[in-house]
């Protein structure tokens, strides 16, 4: 029916009493997400908005609430620790919204997660949503519409724009996953494409990439060997100058593989059409889906 999250997902929010944490915890609750616990060390025993119990640690939260996903708003200096805490507590899905985590912290975190069952989304990402069921993140819920397109993206607001264009055309989404804009992060484009591929509810896939790194190339290579679902891509940053960090820590062209041109070439080489204008994402997706049906 979806990937990663659904109506049965039980969420703990780490950093629930902070400014961003409390704002978005409320928005997720309003969307219908089961937020069953919050964590703020030192405030264990209190309640958030009189409804969500707060714990001193994820381990305690898990015992008391049987949460199986975590949403992290802990500030950058403590975010790597928060991720490892959730992983050590056996949380299966960790969504880390926090922006600005030092790269070498994420290098250590990723290494620690190797060989565990924990999946990390982000950091520096909008999160993941299965429209109508569960929103674990900061995306505006109302723009989404349940349906059959799976979206995976390295971006935030650009994804909202894409979702908006799809929903406006009546094209709903199975799940939308923002994997984040940092150079070292959790689930990558290939892994999420793989999940969509195995999800019966997903009929087509939209990949939104950008300059920097070579995950798009890896995604194209993976798609070629493993995926049979119609997929289209959009890539941001064709006008970005090399060597400059364009907002996202990961959006910087440091070699030939990091350019949009190289990424377009990789997608087109395996038969994934690339939408060239950000205004045409809805139309491009629509066209790809029609082509499959006919």
């Amino acid at each position, binding site marked *: 029916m979806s990937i990663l999250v659904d109506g049965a997902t039980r969420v703990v929010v780490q950093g629930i009493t902070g400014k*961003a944490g409390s704002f*978005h915890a409320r928005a997720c609750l309003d969307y219908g997400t089961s937020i069953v616990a919050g964590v703020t060390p030192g405030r264990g025993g209190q309640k958030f908005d009189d409804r969500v119990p707060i714990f001193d640690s994820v381990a305690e939260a898990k015992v008391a609430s049987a949460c199986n996903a975590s949403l992290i708003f802990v500030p*950058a*200096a403590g975010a790597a620790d928060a991720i490892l805490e959730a992983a050590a507590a056996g949380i299966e899905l960790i969504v880390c919204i926090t922006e*600005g*985590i*030092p*790269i*070498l*912290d*994420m*290098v*250590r975190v*990723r*290494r*620690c997660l190797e060989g565990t069952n924990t999946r990390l989304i982000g950091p520096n990402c*909008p999160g993941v949503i299965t429209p109508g069921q569960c929103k674990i993140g*900061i*995306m*505006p819920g*109302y*723009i989404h519409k349940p349906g059959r397109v799976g979206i995976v*993206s390295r*971006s*935030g*607001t*650009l*994804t*909202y*724009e894409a979702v*908006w264009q799809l929903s406006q055309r009546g094209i709903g989404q199975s799940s939308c996953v923002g994997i984040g*804009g*940092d*150079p*070292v992060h959790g689930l990558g484009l290939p892994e999420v494409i793989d999940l969509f591929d195995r999800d019966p509810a997903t009929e087509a896939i939209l990949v*939104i990439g*950008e*300059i*920097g*790194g*070579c995950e798009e190339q*890896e995604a194209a290579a993976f798609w070629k060997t493993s995926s049979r679902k119609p997929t289209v891509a*959009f890539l*941001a*940053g064709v*006008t*970005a*100058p090399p060597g*400059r*960090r*364009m*907002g*996202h*820590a*990961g959006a910087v062209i440091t070699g030939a593989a990091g350019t949009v041109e190289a990424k377009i070439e990789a997608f087109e080489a395996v038969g994934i059409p690339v939408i*060239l*204008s*950000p*205004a*045409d994402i809805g139309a491009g997706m629509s066209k790809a889906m029609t082509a499959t049906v006919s």
Partner: protein
Amino acid sequence: MNVFEYQARSLLGRYGLPIPPGGVATSPEEARQIAERLTRGPFVVKSQILAGGRGKGRFLSGFSGGVRLCEHPAEVEEVARAMLGGVLVTAQTGPEGRPVNKVLVAEAPRIQRELYLAILLDRGRRCPVVIGSAQGGVDIEEVAREEPGALHRIWVDPQVGFWPYQARELAVRIGLRGPLLNPAADVIARLYRFFCECDASLAEVNPLAVIENEKIAVIDAKIGFDENALFRHPEIAAYRNEVVEDVREAEALKAGLNYVGLSGEIGCMVNGAGLAMATMDILHRYGGEPANFLDVGGGADQNQVTKAFGILMADPRVRAIFVHIFGGIMRCDVIARGIVEAVSHAKPKVPIVVRLQGTNFEEGKAILRQSDLLIRTADDLADAAQKAVAAARETR
């Protein structure tokens, strides 16, 4: 964040890397004094700009070479005079070049061999990689393309760390054997320690040299830092203001905005980095060119919108302003109020095109409409971009 060579020398020096003695000067007299204090010539005078290719560069004044060898302190003064205050154009600066406000004066040891050493993050493998080559002093990207086997890489498991034997292995692979092996391995190990302890994103020594008396020396170093980690390195963070060469970027930095200066004519203000890039891209598709990348962030408030407007309006290149907001966390009515306030206050001479979409976009548009200011709006992204390109053309 890249730092100037003289700053890199100072940081690496603290980690015990072998750097030829020298100093940085802002005046020709100071440059001469530095040379006089050094033990012996020849001396090298190096323009301090944040771009490569300095040696083959040329000043707008006609003076040739951003890096020059001098035999005597008097010559050092002369060369520094020609460089300081000038604008240096290299293959990496673009035709507008970069201003040279400081020169590095250092001893120039006799070089017997030039090698290459760098540590950076391998994003694909998610770990640091230590790279060495026996071919240094040249463009390493070219070496990588034409003779990939000449580059030797050691990937470092972050849990195990980088051990001396790995440094020795790399030293051997790049031909530093015999009495050079242990000193070279020591240099590599120290550079790695610097990389990790200072949260560098790049630590490149090119060339790493074998100099007279069979010694190893760091002749030139390019150092970049992970901006996310600057909070734990206040001393390095303090370099930040010094290393911004673009005046617009310096202003944006003060205002805490995520800004990159470009050479086009449409000032952009967007929320979100991906959307900001896509916005630049679509302007380009319709024949316009962005004057900047500016991401006001997901949670920007009215105040930041005002500041951002100020920077766009102060840019003489800007012939039109394009505001593109997808309201998620950020509500479009709040943005609209920020725009109205900024515009009423500063009375910009260039046209403004606004596209608001997402949360409260109707209210936002209503606020703009009721303001009686000359703000052009559009619902559709393509339409908005075309209007912005057209607006910039009007004022040309």
